[in-house]
Each structure stands twice: as C-alpha cells, then as structure tokens.
C-alpha cells in the first residue's frame, strides 16, 4: 500500500473527515434547504390551489354573469316582443276603429245626401204639381164661359144636400 503511495491512515482520516462533513452538511445545510424547498413547494402548491380556486370562482362568476346577461337579454326580448305585440294590437284596433268611424261618416253622409236628394226631389215635384194646379186654375178661370159657369152652379145646387 505504501509502495502504491496510499496512506491507510490518511485514507481513514479522509473517510472519517468525509463522514463528518457529510454529517455536518446533512445536519446544517441539507435539512434547512430541504425544509425551505418543501415550504417553497407547499407555498407554490397553495398558490396553485388558490389560483385554481380563484379560476373556478371567476369561471363561476363569469358563468353567472353570462347567465344574468342571457336572462336579461331574454327578458328584454320578451318585453320587446310583448310591446311589439301590444303595439300591433293597438295599431290594428285603432285602424279598425278609424275604419269603422270612416264607414259610419260615409254612411251618414250618404244617407243625408240621399235624404236631401229625396227632399229636393219632393220639393220639386210639389212645385211642379202646385204650378200645374195654378196653371189649370188660371186657364179655367179665363176660359169658362158664362153658360158653363151657370151649368156648374146648377149642378152644384143639385149636389148640395144630396
């Protein structure tokens, strides 16, 4: 061993030194580092969990928000439809009423016109008849002879009291 340049004592010391160093490193360096790494790992995991939780919450809120918006949109659409329908109904009703009113006015005007026409026609007919009677009366008053008047008087006397 000595011929090979190997000193067993030195090797023994170095081995002992190695184990001492290993012990010291393990006790004062590895353990805190490992603890720190564990803590770090835990912290990262917690952060990740928190992130995931927050992500879920955000997703749920987004979903809820979307749901609310969708509901609001649906309600708004329904309301709009109802308003449109009501508007349409009112429009139709107003149109119908206006049409009926117009028809009534036209009908009344026609009736009045017809009545007026009938009245004018009647007045005209009366005027014609009156005029005819007056003309006949005038002609008769001028054309009757004394003999004819006497004959009429005699007939009238005969008729009286019979």
């Amino acid at each position, binding site marked *: 061993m000595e011929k090979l340049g190997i000193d067993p004592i030195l090797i023994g010391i170095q081995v002992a030194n190695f184990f001492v160093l290993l012990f010291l490193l393990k006790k004062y360096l590895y353990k805190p580092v490992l603890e720190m790494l564990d803590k770090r790992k835990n912290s990262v995991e917690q952060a990740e969990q928190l992130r995931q939780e927050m992500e879920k919450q955000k997703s749920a809120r987004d979903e809820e928000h979307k749901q609310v918006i969708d509901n609001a949109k649906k309600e708004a659409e329904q309301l709009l439809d109802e308003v449109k329908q009501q508007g349409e109904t009112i429009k139709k009703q107003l149109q119908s009423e206006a049409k009926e009113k117009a028809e009534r006015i036209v009908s009344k005007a026609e009736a009045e016109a017809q009545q007026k026409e009938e009245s004018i026609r*009647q007045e005209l*007919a*009366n005027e014609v*008849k*009156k005029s005819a*009677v007056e003309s*006949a*009366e005038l002609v*008769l*008053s001028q054309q*009757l002879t*004394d003999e*004819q*008047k*006497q004959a*009429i*008087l*005699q007939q*009238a*006397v*005969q*008729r*009286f*009291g019979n």
Partner: protein
Amino acid sequence: MKEQTTQNNRVSSDVIQKALSAYMQAEEANVATVEYVGVLTSELKTQLEEKIVKLFPESATLEFVENPKLIAGLRISFRDQVYDDSVVGRFGKLRSLTVE
C-alpha cells in the same frame, strides 16, 4: 147728485151697447152665407133655401153674395161649417192632395 145721474146714464149706455152687440153677434151667428158665380134664378134660390133650412134648422136668415173669385160653383158658410163646391175650392183640395 148731478154726478151720480151722469154716472148712471153712462152705465146704462154701456149695458145697452153690450146687449146690442150680443144681439148682433147672435143674429150674425144665425146667418148662412151663400156665395156663388152665375145667375141665381128664383128656382135655384128656392131649392137652396129648402136644402139649407133642412140641413141647418137653426139658421134664421140667408145671405146671397155673388163672388167671382170662386170662378164657378158655390160656397155655403154657416157658423164654423163650410160647404165648398166651387172651382176654387176644388182646386184647393186638389192642391192639398197633390202637394205632400
């Protein structure tokens, strides 16, 4: 006294006037008026008198008036009753019948 006499005379005059007026009205009410056109011969007159007395026994007197406005025929009025057989009357009836 004199005033009293004057007043009594005035009252008597009023009463006489009212009585006379009432008498005249009564007389007028009993007159039957015959309006005619043409010559009313004594024969026609007699016929009319007989018929009028028969129809209106309460008529005391008859009054005959020629009225050319009738054109022809006759019209007899007694109180509120009128018998119209004149041409004018007939035209009047015709007018009232034709004019609506």
